[in-house]
C-alpha cells in the first residue's frame, strides 16, 4: 500500500472520526507537562512533542491488575473479556516491538491467553516513528529501529506539516480506508524526507553489544560476577514495571465470604516474594539470583524460546532506576 498523508491540522479530525468507533488513546500532556496516553474526549489537544511516555503502553494489553473472573458460592461466573474497540495512537516503535514480543508469549506459544488475545484483537496500534531518540535508547541493537513499525498496525512518520501513514497489517489497512476521505497520497519526495529523518535518528543511537548474548550467557550461570553487578540493586520493581516487555504476573483470589474474584497482577523478579515457596524456602534468596534471572530471561531464555531478546532498548529502566543502574553496563560487565 502507498503511503497516505494527513496534515497536522487535520489530525484532530481523523482522531475524532476514529472516536466514533471506539475509544481513542493519544498523547495528552498532564499537569506536569508529561505526555500520557489518555483516552480522548471531544476537544482534547494532543501533543506530539514527547520522546516517549513514562509508562510503557503494555498495560493496554496486559493491565497491571485484571479481574480474570468472579465467583460466588463455588460457582464461577463468565470471565470478563475486554470488549471495547480501541485505537492507541502515538506508541513509539520500541513499545510496538514489545507488543510483538508479548504476542509470542500470550498468543503464539502453547498458551493462548484469552484476555490478552481479546485485547490485542480489539486494539489498533498506531506507532509514531522517532526523530529524536534519547541517549538511553538502544533499539537498533535489539532488532528494532526508530522507524520500525513491527507490532503496530499503522506506522506514522512525522514531517514538518504532515504525518505520513503507512498501514502494516490488514487491521491497519481497514483503519486507514475507513478515513480515506481525510487522507491524500504522499508524494515520493515526502516519503524520502521521512525516511531520511528516520535514518538521521538511527545514526544518533549508540550501539550496545547484544549479538550472541544467548550463547555467551549459557556459560555465565555460575559466574561470580552476578554478585558484583547486582550489589547496589535496591530490589524495587521500577525497572520491571516500566519495562514494555516484562510480563510476569501473580494470580490471587480476593475472597470475602462466599464471593470473590481471581485477579492477575504484575509481578517482578526483583521482589523477594516472586519465588518464595510455601515452605519458606526461596530459590532466589538474594539480588544476585534475581539479577541473573532478569538478564537470563531477557537475553538468553527469550532468544532460545522466542527467537528475540525481551528487551526493546527503550531505556526506561536506565532513566528511572533510583540508584542509576544501567542494563547496558550490566550486560557489558557480565561479558555479553
Amino acid at each position, binding site marked *: 500500500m502507498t503511503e497516505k498523508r494527513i496534515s497536522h491540522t487535520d489530525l484532530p479530525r481523523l482522531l475524532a472520526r476514529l472516536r466514533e468507533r471506539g475509544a481513542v488513546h493519544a498523547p495528552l500532556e498532564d499537569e506536569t507537562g508529561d505526555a500520557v496516553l489518555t483516552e480522548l474526549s471531544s476537544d482534547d489537544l494532543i501533543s506530539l512533542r514527547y520522546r516517549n511516555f513514562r509508562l510503557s503502553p503494555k498495560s493496554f494489553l496486559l493491565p497491571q491488575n485484571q479481574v480474570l473472573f468472579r465467583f460466588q458460592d463455588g460457582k464461577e461466573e463468565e470471565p470478563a473479556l475486554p470488549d471495547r474497540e480501541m485505537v492507541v495512537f502515538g506508541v513509539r516503535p520500541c513499545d510496538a516491538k514489545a507488543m510483538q514480543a508479548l504476542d509470542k508469549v500470550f498468543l503464539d506459544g502453547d498458551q493462548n491467553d484469552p484476555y490478552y488475545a481479546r485485547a490485542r484483537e480489539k486494539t489498533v496500534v498506531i506507532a509514531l516513528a522517532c526523530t529524536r531518540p534519547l541517549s538511553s535508547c538502544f533499539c537498533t541493537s535489539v532488532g528494532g529501529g526508530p522507524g520500525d513499525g513491527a507490532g503496530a498496525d499503522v506506522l506514522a512518520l512525522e514531517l514538518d506539516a504532515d504525518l505520513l501513514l503507512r498501514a502494516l497489517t490488514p487491521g491497519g489497512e481497514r483503519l486507514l480506508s475507513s478515513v480515506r476521505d481525510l487522507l491524500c497520497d504522499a508524494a515520493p519526495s515526502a516519503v524520502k524526507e521521512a525516511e531520511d529523518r528516520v535514518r538521521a535518528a538511527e545514526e544518533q543511537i549508540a550501539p550496545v553489544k547484544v549479538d550472541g548474548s544467548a550463547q555467551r550467557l549459557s556459560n555465565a550461570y555460575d559466574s561470580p560476577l552476578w554478585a558484583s553487578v547486582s550489589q547496589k540493586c535496591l530490589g524495587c520493581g521500577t525497572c520491571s*514495571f516500566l519495562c514494555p516487555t516484562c510480563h510476569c504476573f501473580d494470580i490471587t483470589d480476593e475472597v470475602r465470604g462466599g464471593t470473590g474474584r481471581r485477579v492477575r*497482577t504484575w509481578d517482578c523478579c526483583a521482589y523477594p516474594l516472586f519465588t518464595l515457596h510455601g515452605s519458606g524456602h526461596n530459590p532466589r534468596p538474594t539480588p544476585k539470583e534475581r539479577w541473573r534471572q532478569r538478564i537470563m530471561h531477557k537475553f538468553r531464555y527469550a532468544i532460545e524460546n522466542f527467537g528475540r531478546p525481551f528487551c526493546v532498548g527503550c531505556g526506561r529502566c536506565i532513566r528511572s532506576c533510583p540508584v542509576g543502574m544501567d542494563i547496558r553496563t550490566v550486560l557489558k560487565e557480565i561479558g555479553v
Partner: protein
Amino acid sequence: MTASHEIENRLRATAEKLLREKKVDLFLGYEKASLPFRTTPLLLTAAEEAGRLVWNSFCTVNLAVYLPRLFKAPADAREAKSATPPPKVGIVLKGCDARSVVALIQERQVPRENLVLVGIGCPGVVDAQKAEKTLGEHEALGAGEDAQGSIRAVVEDGTEITLYRQEVLADACLECRSPMPAICDLVLGGPVEAKETDAARRRAAEFESKPPDARWARFQEMISKCIRCNACRQACPMCYCKECLLDQTRPRLIGAGTDISDVTIYHLVRALHTAGRCTECGACVRACPMGIDTRLLTRKLSLEAEDLYGYRAGQSADAIPLLSAFAMDDPQDFLTEPSHLPAASSSAQEAEQARRAK
C-alpha cells in the same frame, strides 16, 4: 564552602587510605553514572580503585540504605553457623544521610564501632527529574557544576545551558535545616551553614489549610499515579523490616496491585511506620518513577514529632527513639481531646452523616 573537586580529591585519598590500611573492608561512595544529573553508588573494596569515587551535586542516593543489609542478623541457627563476622564499613555521608545512620544506630540496626563515617557538608543535591524537566525538550548529554554552584548541562546540539541551582535542587534539600552531618569520624571540606528555613512548615501548612475532603482528594489524586513498584520503600534507609507488613502473604493483608484502596493503605502504612523516624532525606521522592511527592504525609508527621515532643529524628545517637520513649508529661490531648483539630468541612460531615444513617 570548599569546591567539590577538592573534596573529591580528599575523598579518594581518604577511601584509599582506609582500604589500604584495612581500617575498612568496604567503602560506600558514589561513582559516575551513565546518564547526566546522576551518580551511582560505588561499593568499593579495592584501595587502588578509589579514583572512581566522585563527589558533586548529583550524589543523591542516601547510602545509609545499604547499611542494615550489611549487618543483617542471621535468620536462623544454620545461617548463624556460616555467618562471616560483620564488616567494617566506610561511608560517605551528607547531613541527611548522617541522620539516617544515627537513627539506624539508635534502633540497633548497625553497630557504630564497625562504621567509619566520612561526613561532607552538603550544599544540596540535584533532583534529576527536576533538572530534566527544566530542560524541556532538550536532553542533557553531560552535566556539571561551576564554581558558583550553578548546574551546567550540555544538550544534544552541543549548546551549554545553565540551570539555576535553586530550581533543580531536590525538594528535601530546599527544606533542609541541617546540611552538616550530625555524626561523623572525619569531615571533608569546610562547614556548610545551617539554614533557618521554614520551607517544610510552609508546604505542610499549605496542604493543611485545605478542608479535609480537599486534602483527601489531593492525596488520592496524587497516589492514583502509584504503580506499586516499592521504590520509595526500598530507597528508604528506615524501611529495613525483615518482612514488611505489606509483603505478608499469610494472610495477605493488602493487595499487591493498584486498586486505589490498596495503594492508599500502602502509603498510609509507610507514612505511619516512619513517623518520628523519617530523617527527611527525600530518597523516597527521588526514587519514585511517577513523580509522586511521597513526603506529603511524612513531612507533616516529622513536624508533629518536633512540635509535640521537640524531637527530630537522627539528631543524636544517644537519644531514645521517639516511639520508644515515654514521659508522664507527654502531650496526649491530640488523642484524648481531638476537639482542637480543625473541624471537618461540611461536605465531609454530610458524607459521614449519610454513612451513619445507612
